[in-house]
């Protein structure tokens, strides 16, 4: 199934809003770290409901664009804001429709690993970022987070399962400098008392603590060179 079909269906079911609620717990931490300045042009890759695009705009950037490969996602995202400096574009990670050096900073949450060819996507990002621009790449689906491995079985789009080291190496292979890597703990999700385990998803309370408070969301920050 194509990205378009898979995620248009998600958008139609309203799953964009559910993702927004869950992903915000750690996405807000990554967004807060971004060195954006007033007037910057920023890009949110795989924007879904567009919450990160809207949050960046609140930091007084000049223009915030959300790109998504699923037209229904972009349509939903557009309907959640009437800020004229927020815009949505349908496009694919592998062929970004932006000019060289046209973006100051880019962000992506839980979307990068759907790319058909992650190195190509990173090269495209390097091309559109101005020298010194950053790419904040946040993912919950990564090698060390074994709790996420089963997701592929429920999604028909191929997913890339990189480790922390593979994220660093991939960024460097595509010509990025790696400035930071971190596990962002989700401190907002509620973890029930031990007596309620096993739950549907976790055998023990320790597992759920490891999943959310320790592994959390993997953030890799790349900086585009000259």
């Amino acid at each position: 199934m194509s990205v378009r079909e898979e995620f248009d269906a998600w958008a139609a079911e309203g799953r964009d809003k559910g993702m927004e609620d869950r992903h915000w717990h750690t996405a807000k931490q990554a967004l807060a770290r971004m060195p954006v300045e007033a007037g910057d042009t920023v890009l949110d890759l795989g924007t879904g409901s567009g919450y990160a695009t809207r949050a960046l705009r609140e930091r007084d950037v000049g223009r915030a664009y959300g790109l998504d490969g699923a037209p229904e996602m972009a349509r939903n995202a557009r309907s959640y804001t009437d800020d004229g400096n927020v815009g949505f574009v349908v496009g694919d990670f592998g062929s970004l429709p932006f000019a060289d050096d046209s973006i100051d900073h880019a962000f992506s949450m839980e979307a990068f690993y759907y790319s058909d060819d992650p190195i190509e996507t990173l090269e495209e990002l390097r091309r559109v970022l101005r020298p010194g621009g950053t790419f904040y790449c946040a993912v919950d689906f990564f090698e060390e987070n074994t709790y996420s491995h089963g997701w592929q079985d429920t999604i028909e789009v191929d997913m890339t399962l990189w480790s922390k080291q593979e994220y660093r190496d991939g960024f460097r292979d595509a010509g990025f400098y790696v400035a930071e890597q971190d596990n962002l703990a989700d401190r907002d999700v509620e973890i029930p008392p031990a007596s309620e385990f096993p739950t549907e998803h976790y055998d023990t309370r320790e597992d759920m603590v490891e999943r959310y408070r320790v592994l959390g969301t993997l953030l890799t920050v790349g900086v585009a060179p000259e």
Partner: protein
Amino acid sequence: MKRDLMDIVCCPLDKHDLELDVDVEEDEVLEGTLTCTDCGETYPIEDGIPNLLPPDMRD
């Protein structure tokens, strides 16, 4: 889409500039077409959202 998107947008295939043809415009462009100034490929703007997927991914 706002017209200022034209400053940074380009053809996803060959990265050349696009030309904007407007069919419906209010605060922003609601319906129209973006055409690559080099390869001539066209990209629709529908309900205010430009669809800049490579043509083979469009449907």
